[in-house]
Structure formats: structure tokens, C-alpha cells
């Protein structure tokens, strides 16, 4: 079973665009992932996060705080997450966890409310993960309860990000596979047990000819009489 490291998902998240203000002048750059426009000092533009972090570390750029990463918006999100007990709310950004970690670690000087944002992102993460774990537990419960649940055993989870799904991937898939192995075993044994019982009825049907021969003898004797 494949194991995906969190840093690999972070790598995928680094392709997201973020608004920066460059401090240098450069022509239009043509890269594999796209073309990034002429850089003029003081003129904001959007570039991928990997490029932004690299330029920031060289002091060539100022990174702006993304629009969704403000204290008010995150607080609102946290409240709506807390309000709904079972389902997750659509996230403000699909890679909120990775982006917040990268920006808060590398680009602290241009951000506001850093500690609050860190705390809020952690809280949001904890709430969503607990919901996800709850639904995993429910799935495992239906595995051993032997009755097919109403929706036929097909589960759907909405609004969870890649990072959260990866968090539970390892143990959940293992447990699920284990339960599949066991229930396959149970069905094969039950089928065999049914065959054994059917085998008994074939044995009893083997006695029927002798019974019918006794009957035929009886009718013959009756006819004789």
C-alpha cells in the first residue's frame, strides 16, 4: 500500500499562485509550468509559491498575505466547522494547511496576526480531522455489523482536502483490507456450509428409490390381491 509523505503533498501545493511584489526588473520568463510576466519593481503579479519562496529567500520579492488567510475569514470558517457536527465545510483553500505552513515559516515579516492565524489553522485542522476519524470509525463499524447499511455500503466524504485524506490513509486502508479478507473468508465458509447441508438432502433423495421400490412392491402385492 502506498505511503505518501506530507512533504510530497506540499510539493504539489507549491504550484499554487500567490501575489508578490518584486524588487527587481526582469523580462517575461518562460518556464515549464507556465509563463510568468515581466517583473517590474513595485508592480504586483502572481507567481507560483515555489518561485515566491525562492525569491523571498534571496530578498528579491515581498510576499503578500493571501486573501483567505486573514484572522476574520479563518474565524468564520472555524465557527461554521464547529456548527456542523458530521460533515466538513468547503475549505477556503484546497491546500490551506500546506500553504499556511510554508508562508508562516518563511515569510513572516510581511504578515499580520501570525500567532492567531497559526492557532486558527491548527484548530480548523483538528476539527476536520476528528470528523474524518469519526466517519472512518463508522465505516469500520458497518464492516463488522453484518447488516448492509441503508446506502448499500458506499460512503462519500465531501470537502476534505488532500492533506487530510492522506493523514488517515495508512491505517484506514489497512484495517479495511483486513476486514475484506475476513469477510471473504466468512462468505466462502458459509457457502461451503450450505453445500454440506445440500449434500445431506442429496443423500436423503438417494433413499427415495428404495422407498419407491417398496411402494411398487406394495402396489404389486395389492394388484395381486
Amino acid at each position: 500500500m502506498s505511503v505518501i509523505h506530507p512533504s510530497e503533498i506540499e510539493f504539489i501545493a507549491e504550484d499554487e499562485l500567490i501575489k508578490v511584489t518584486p524588487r527587481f526588473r526582469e523580462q517575461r520568463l518562460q518556464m515549464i509550468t507556465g509563463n510568468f510576466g515581466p517583473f517590474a519593481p513595485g508592480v504586483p503579479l502572481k507567481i507560483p509559491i515555489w518561485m515566491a519562496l525562492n525569491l523571498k529567500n534571496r530578498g528579491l520579492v515581498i510576499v503578500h498575505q493571501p486573501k483567505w488567510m486573514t484572522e476574520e475569514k479563518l474565524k468564520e470558517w472555524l465557527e461554521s466547522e464547529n456548527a456542523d457536527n458530521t460533515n466538513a465545510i468547503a475549505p477556503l483553500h484546497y491546500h490551506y494547511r500546506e500553504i499556511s505552513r510554508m508562508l508562516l515559516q518563511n515569510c513572516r515579516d510581511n504578515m499580520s496576526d501570525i500567532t492567531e492565524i497559526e492557532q486558527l489553522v491548527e484548530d480548523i485542522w483538528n476539527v476536520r480531522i476528528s470528523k474524518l476519524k469519526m466517519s472512518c470509525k463508522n465505516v469500520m463499524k458497518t464492516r463488522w455489523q453484518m447488516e448492509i447499511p441503508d446506502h448499500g455500503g458506499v460512503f462519500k466524504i465531501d470537502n476534505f482536502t488532500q492533506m487530510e485524506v492522506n493523514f488517515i490513509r495508512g491505517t484506514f486502508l489497512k484495517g479495511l483490507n483486513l476486514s475484506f479478507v475476513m469477510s471473504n473468508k466468512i462468505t466462502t465458509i458459509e457457502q461451503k456450509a450450505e453445500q454440506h447441508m445440500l449434500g445431506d438432502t442429496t443423500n436423503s433423495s438417494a433413499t427415495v428409490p428404495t422407498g419407491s421400490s417398496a411402494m411398487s412392491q406394495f402396489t404389486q402385492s395389492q394388484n395381486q390381491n
Partner: protein
Amino acid sequence: MSDLGIVDDQSASYLDIDDILMTENKISCRARYDLVDLELRRTAEDFHEGKKVDLPIWMAMRLNEFFRHEIPKQYNTHFQGILNADPEVVNLHKEGPKYFAMGLQLTSENFDFADDEDIINMCQTLLQASARRVSWISDMAAADHYQQSKVDSKLDDMEKEMYAKAISERKSWEDWTRGMSNRLTESKFIAKSRKRKRDALAQKNN
């Protein structure tokens, strides 16, 4: 042994070390007929009908025609009741370190226990216990203060592997949140060899 399906696969389980260890477990068997001059225990002996003997599973499976098998104590109805009541508390390491694998093995065709119903019930108990314990293990691995040795002593081999994987996943997650994934660290192999070299040099000077 993380993939229990290997128990059924004849060719794959032949060389699997976990399967070999599991089939070494003994089962008490009763002779069906009068068997004369068998060398099951290194000496030729006679088994009169109904004599009890403990055979390892791999042997008992093949001698199915001559021996009647009994379900071992840790899979019988009484123990099933205990497992059904509260599977998280039972110490499965004590009941044979490969509890689930052996349970699956006992359901294979070669065994001829008294009742089909018993086997079905045992399998269902195993399924239920495994599902509940897996949830419990994942909770334990994610708990704030996890103590690996305490929980480990109660898990059987397959669960131990699962638990170790969960712990290592959690550790790599925590490393990532603190931003330490991107650091380059010295490989353990190199560190050990350097330490030994330094010790050897120090000894030579002394």
C-alpha cells in the same frame, strides 16, 4: 504478517516466515482409528482410537483423515464471548502471538471440527474483534501521549506491524508540521561507522 490473505495461498505461504511460525502452533488431536507404529514424536508408538496428542498445525492439516481435531482454547465459544464483549482489552499477544492468522488458518478446508456453525461464529468474532481493535489501535497511535511498550504487549503480530506503521506515519507528520522534513540528516549507517572508527582510534592511542 500484514496481509492475512497469505494464509490461504499455498505457494506464497510456503516460504513466508510468519506463516511458518504460525503453523508451528500446536493443536490437540484425537486419533480416529487404531494407528500402529507411527513416528509422530520421534519414536514409534501405537495410537489406539481416541488417544490425544498435540500436533503442530502444518502436520495436523495433512493428517486430517486419521485425526480428529479440536478447536484450541483461545478460539472456543467461551473465549469468543470474551472477545465479543470487549475486544480492546484482551491481551492477544498472550493468546498465541499470531492470533488472527491462526484463526484464519483454522477455517481452511483441511480441518474437520465438529460443527460448521462454530467455525462461522469464530470467523465473525474474529472480524468484529479485528475491526474494533484496528479502530482502537489508530486511536492509540494518534493519542497525545502514546506509550509504545504498554500498548505493544497486548497486540498480536499483525496488529504490532500496523501500530508501528501508524506511529511512524504520525512521527513523520509531526516532523513535517515543524518544518523538519526538508533537512538533510546524516544517515544512521554513516554515523555508526564513524563512531566505531573514532573509538578504535582512541583505543589505539591509549
